């Protein structure tokens, strides 16, 4: 791949669990500075180091990755900035 087109930021959401136990994955790539600038505030707003809570039976499990950051969250914790980021990735990728 041409180096100029290497993505500056990749945000990936992997959803597992739920009653059906199906795995779904959504991903966005920011290839320009402008795009990356638009995504970074959403990424930075999330508490990446927070301790994950316990899940409830059949709740979804979200694995969120943004370049080298990674967090695994039960559905009940995907709230506030996490919800904004996850919804933005799912909406952009769908």
């Amino acid at each position, binding site marked *: 791949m041409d180096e100029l087109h290497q993505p500056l930021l990749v945000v990936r959401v992997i959803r597992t669990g739920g009653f*059906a136990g199906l795995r779904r994955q959504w991903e966005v790539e920011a290839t320009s500075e402008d795009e990356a600038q638009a995504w970074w505030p959403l990424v930075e707003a999330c508490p990446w180091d927070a301790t994950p809570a316990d899940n409830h039976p059949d709740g979804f499990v979200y694995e969120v990755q943004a370049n080298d950051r990674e967090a695994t969250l039960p559905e009940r914790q995907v709230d506030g900035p996490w919800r904004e980021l996850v919804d933005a990735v799912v909406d952009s990728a769908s």
Partner: protein
Amino acid sequence: METIRGIVPPYLLRHIAGLEEDRFATAAEAARRALSERPVHGGHAHPSVRPPVVDAELRRKVHDAENGTDLPGRLVRGEGDPATGDVAADEAYDGFGATDALFRQQYGRTSMDDAGLTLLGTVHYGVAYDNAFWDGTQMVFGDGDGEIFGRFTASLSVIGHELTHGLIEYTAGLVYRDQSGALNESIADVFGALVEQHAAGQTADEASWLIGVGLFTDEVEGEALRSMAAPGTAYDDDVLGKDPQPGHMDDFVETTQDNGGVHLNSGIPNKAFHLVATELGGHAWEVAGRIWYETLLGDLSPRATFEQFAQATVAVAENHDAADVVRGAWQAVGVWTNSTSPSSSSG
């Protein structure tokens, strides 16, 4: 019979024992027995603290989240209320009734906590929400996205599954991760299937052993979400891929996703239950279901492994002349080899 414990006040036992209605037959019979066996200085109470029973009758409350995520939402149907005309709300109400009927009539249990807890549910949760879950207090059902999934109340096995998560929380408390989590999932499937079979009056041979029939839209190549009879065969679709459930320990999935693959590895104990039920024949809830139910009420570790659970079921099965069948089923799915299987005298 496992039912009314010593903590139930005598006046209530007398009340239950006097019930004539058919649907209370099992509870009434158990109450009569408990009264006759009741020691002078009170009974043998369950070690866990239980609230006193104040009302043993079925009570349901179905709410509507109106596509929001605030729980429980607006109450749309309470116990005895007429049908709402909303399919999801009425399916949830009827499904709670069918689930309660299995546990009450066959095992003498009064609600999930065995103390008459009101069954709470919410339908129309979120927008195009592809899931149903138990949140520790109540059941929650989404409408589905309309492309892959329709509404989650469409399958009685799903409603029975979610209520069983509540039952497990009040009994064995299996931790929702790794093998104990897969057992939690499997037991929810077992009783979800039994609720459906009980409502339809099916024998083990007549039953489909499918979980979630009718949840997928017509667009999906698949009849259900899981198959207890043949794990890994419920669907095979261009978009969703193939049902990934294993039915044998050789194919046990090691993963950190899905709380350690709880919805995948549950296929193994699911298959073991199916083998027990079909080997014994007849109505699966009568002996196979009772063994699993009594195992849940026993002193199972919250972190039980497949093998520990299997041992506990064999021990219970000794009392039901079914230990050999249960032992054979766990061997068939590879939880034990011939050489590691507990002998018949160990139960």
